[in-house]
């Protein structure tokens, strides 16, 4: 098989070979789903491709070079992680407006513990995560047990946490992060060999899982995906990630003689672990199933014996804890925490990322990978517009427009889904 960069193109390519080809059949099914209103990741993927083409054409030297590609990942990391947390809350049909300042506050706690009190970085990380979890617990209790709409609770938390953040930072204006480990999280790279090892682990792991699942379903007499389709998906993933790893493994320092910058950013490994772990929770555990059920029909979930209140509480705790992880990345990237850490448009970018990726604001539909794809779309816009020397005003307007387009795609696909009976 020739190496494809995307599954769809491969399948399109072999369409002429006859309708009995399983790849063609799979493509037909997929296309029928898209037409039926279940577009999945398609809009976000198309968005990424289109944006990359536009910026690569306008800024061929600066946009596509490896240095900028790594930079893009560092910029996107915090928004992606916060968006991953928001997916849990959005799946319930709720919202968390405070996630941005939860990130800022949790990062400030970490700064106080590590920089001011001089404790070690693991204690700082732990304090940061606990802060996030406590914020989520309070929000979750107010929403799930007291029944206050999440919009109001998290709006209050948004304002209050902004105050807490200012209080923690105090007169100085910033808390510097001087710990090398904390700085490394969202600034440094893995050795080149480790990047390739990670690549091998991801592709090999994915292949093992899907091939084993296929074999199991086949032996159980259930419907299963044609082996050609599975192999095509594995090949597509291998090529895509292989190109990325290669691109990140070449020397991107302007002065290689002084400092060498190459390798996959450490933060990519963190994102991958979160992607795999959280996707596992949502799709392979009873808890994940209950999250979707609660978002789809809370009353039905309750009658099925699901503790809906507990599910909601857990989702808010998860969301705020992930926001705290996002806060670590923001602080690491900036080497400091300021009153604007997690403020400004951080939250809106995160919500936008989840929605652009395909998570519905109406609950019951969404995946963790949505946060990554949507986060990349937003990061590419911000990064590319910056390279075009556009002022913030234009960047904001374009970002708003893209979010509007994404929300329209969501609404249109929902309408299509209703008329064709899908959700």
């Amino acid at each position, binding site marked *: 098989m020739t190496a494809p960069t995307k599954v769809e193109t491969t399948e399109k390519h072999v369409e002429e070979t006859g309708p009995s080809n399983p790849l063609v059949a799979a493509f037909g099914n997929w296309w029928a789903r898209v037409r039926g209103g279940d577009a999945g990741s398609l809009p976000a993927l198309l968005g990424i491709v289109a944006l990359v083409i536009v910026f690569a054409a306008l800024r061929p030297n600066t946009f596509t070079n490896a240095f900028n590609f790594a930079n893009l990942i560092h910029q996107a990391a915090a928004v992606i992680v916060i968006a991953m947390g928001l997916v849990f809350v959005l799946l319930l049909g709720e919202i968390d407006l405070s996630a941005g300042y939860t990130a800022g506050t949790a990062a400030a706690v970490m700064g106080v513990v590590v920089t001011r009190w001089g404790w070690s970085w693991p204690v700082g990380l732990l304090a940061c995560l606990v802060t996030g979890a406590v914020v989520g617990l309070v929000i979750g209790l107010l929403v799930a047990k007291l029944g206050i709409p999440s919009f109001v609770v998290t709006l209050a938390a948004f304002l209050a946490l902004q105050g807490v953040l200012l209080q923690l930072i105090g007169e100085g204006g910033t808390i510097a992060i001087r710990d090398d480990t904390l700085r490394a999280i969202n600034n440094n790279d893995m050795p080149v060999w480790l990047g390739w090892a990670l690549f091998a682990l991801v592709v090999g792991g994915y292949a093992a899982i899907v091939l084993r699942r296929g074999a*199991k*379903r086949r032996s*159980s*007499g*259930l*419907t299963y995906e044609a082996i050609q389709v599975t192999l095509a998906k594995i090949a597509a993933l291998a090529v895509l990630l292989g190109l990325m790893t290669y691109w990140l493994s070449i020397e991107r320092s302007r002065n290689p003689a002084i400092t060498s910058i190459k390798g996959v950013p450490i933060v990519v490994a963190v994102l991958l672990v979160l992607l795999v772990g959280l996707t596992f929770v949502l799709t*392979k*555990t*009873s808890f994940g*199933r*209950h999250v*979707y*059920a609660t*978002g*789809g*029909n809370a*009353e*039905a*979930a309750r*009658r*099925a*014996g*699901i503790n809906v209140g507990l599910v909601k509480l857990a989702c808010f705790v998860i969301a705020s804890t992930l926001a705290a992880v996002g806060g670590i990345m923001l602080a690491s990237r900036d080497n400091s925490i300021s009153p604007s850490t997690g403020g400004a448009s951080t939250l809106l970018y995160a919500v936008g990322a989840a929605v652009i990726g395909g998570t519905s604001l109406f609950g*019951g*539909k969404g995946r963790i990978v949505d946060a990554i794809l949507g986060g990349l779309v937003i990061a590419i816009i911000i990064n590319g517009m910056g390279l075009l020397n556009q002022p913030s005003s234009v960047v904001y307007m374009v970002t708003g427009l893209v979010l509007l387009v994404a929300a329209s795609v969501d609404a249109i696909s929902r309408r299509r*889904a209703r008329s*064709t*009976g*899908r*959700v």
Partner: protein
Amino acid sequence: MTVPEGAAGAATATEDAAPLLSLRGINKSFGAVHVLQDVDFDAYAGQVTALVGDNGAGKSTLIKGIAGSQPFDSGEYVFDGRQVSVTNPKHANELGIEVVYQDLALCDNLDIVDNLFLGREVTKNGILDEATMERRAQETLAGLSVRTVKSIRQVVASLSGGQRQTVAIARAVIWNSKLVVLDEPTAALGVAQTEQVLRLVRQLADNGLAVVLISHNLNDVFQVADRISVLYLGRLAAQMKTKDVKSNQVVEVITTGRSDAIGGITNGNGELK
């Protein structure tokens, strides 16, 4: 009851084995309102027992009591020959009692298998065991002679009203339940789909389950029910076999509560109480 169980109608002893569910002297009040007054009710394995009555007669209160979501104030609750006290829905489920409510309580965004196992997912080492769930779902639907569903992995939102009802009923029987209560299963359906659901209701009874069917539609009742119980203003007005009565007689009992036309309250075997 004046006639001891099993003694009545000895000729039809097999058909009239002891009821699976037997309620005696059931009372339930909401504040000052006495909703159920000394109600007796029986449901037999392998038979469809229709529960009819006008709005406000106490049908919903009776089934909520059976399901344990609103326990009775007093009365005898005998299930499968044992006196039990059902005080919450979980307890009823453990006994093998399932209720399919009118709004079906399905999650539109989940597929058929997910809905069938919702809240009671099969897991292996903490991981959802999709293969087992899918196989059992297939078996259950096949056992109900359901062939109208294209794929059991399609989301419930894409199903027709009759198919949704089928999924809700399948969910009630997948746990080897013994008694299934169906609340107005045909209320929102068209002619063909009503037919399909009624056939399924009959199939449940033929598979050996006790079925309690609540319905406003006497055509449906006469088509599938073996017995009819009529509630009138919180009292049991009549309990009879379908083959012994005519539709207009049942209507009279429902509207007036007087059962003179069919010879007073019977014990369900055509004999006077």
